C-alpha cells in the first residue's frame, strides 16, 4: 500500500515509498526530482547535538495541501509527495522529504524547489535546536500563505 502523498509525524522518512507513491504506474512522467533535508551538526557557529521538531500537525497538512494546489496551478501535470518529520532527530536524519514527478526535468526541478521554499515559508513547523552549551527555538519566516511577495520569491528561486 502506498503512503499518503502528504504527511507529518514522528516516523523516520524514506524516499523510496514516496517515489513509489507518485511514480509507480506513471507512463507519461519522465523526471522525478527529490529533496531530503538532513539535520546538520552545525548552524551559525553552534555545534548542534540534535533537533526537536514541533508542529501544528493538522494545520501543517492543510499548508501542504495548499502547496500542492499551488504546484498544480503552476505545473498542472506535476505529482507531489511531501512529508515532514516531527520529534527528536539526530544528526544526519531527514526532517523533510519531497518528491515531484513531471514529464520533463526542468519542471520537476522547479516544482521540487518551489515546494521546499514554500514549506519554509508557511508550514507551521518549528525547529528546537539543542547545541553544545544551550538550546534555542529557530524562528524564520512569519507564516502568511496569502503573502504574494513571499510566494513570488519562492517561484523566482525555483524557476530562475
Amino acid at each position, binding site marked *: 500500500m502506498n503512503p499518503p502523498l502528504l504527511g507529518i509525524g514522528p516516523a523516520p522518512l524514506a524516499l523510496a515509498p514516496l517515489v513509489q507513491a507518485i511514480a509507480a504506474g506513471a507512463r507519461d512522467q519522465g523526471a522525478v526530482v527529490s529533496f531530503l533535508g538532513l539535520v546538520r551538526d552545525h548552524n551559525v557557529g553552534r555545534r548542534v547535538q540534535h533537533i526537536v521538531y514541533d508542529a*501544528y500537525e493538522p*494545520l501543517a497538512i492543510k499548508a501542504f495541501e495548499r502547496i500542492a494546489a499551488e504546484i498544480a496551478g503552476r505545473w498542472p501535470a506535476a505529482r507531489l509527495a511531501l512529508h*515532514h518529520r516531527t520529534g527528536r532527530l539526530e544528526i544526519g536524519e531527514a526532517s523533510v522529504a519531497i518528491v515531484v514527478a513531471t514529464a520533463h526535468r526542468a519542471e520537476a526541478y522547479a516544482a521540487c524547489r518551489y515546494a521546499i521554499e514554500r514549506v519554509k515559508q508557511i508550514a507551521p513547523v*518549528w525547529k528546537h535546536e539543542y547545541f553544545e552549551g544551550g538550546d534555542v527555538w529557530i*524562528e524564520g519566516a512569519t*507564516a*502568511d500563505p496569502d503573502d504574494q511577495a513571499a510566494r513570488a520569491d519562492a517561484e523566482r528561486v525555483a524557476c530562475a
Partner: protein
Amino acid sequence: MRVTVRLFARLRDIAGAGELERPIAPGATIASVWRDLAREYPDFAQYERSISSAVNLDYARMDRAIADGDEIAFLPPVSGG
C-alpha cells in the same frame, strides 16, 4: 463563551502549556485574545509583530472575529524544512 488557545514552540515554553482554555467576550477577535494573553505572559510582547494566527485550522488575520468553541492558534515565525 470559551475558546481553546493552541501555543507552539517558544510561545508554549513561555506559557508553560500548549493548550489553554480562555473565556471570551462578545465581539472578541483573535487580536483581543492575544492582548489578554500578552497581559498574562509579558514575554509574548516581543512576538506582537511576528506571530501568525489560525482559527479552526485555517490561517486567519488578527482582526478575525471568533466564536464560542473556536480553536485559536498563535504561531511564532516558522522554521520547518
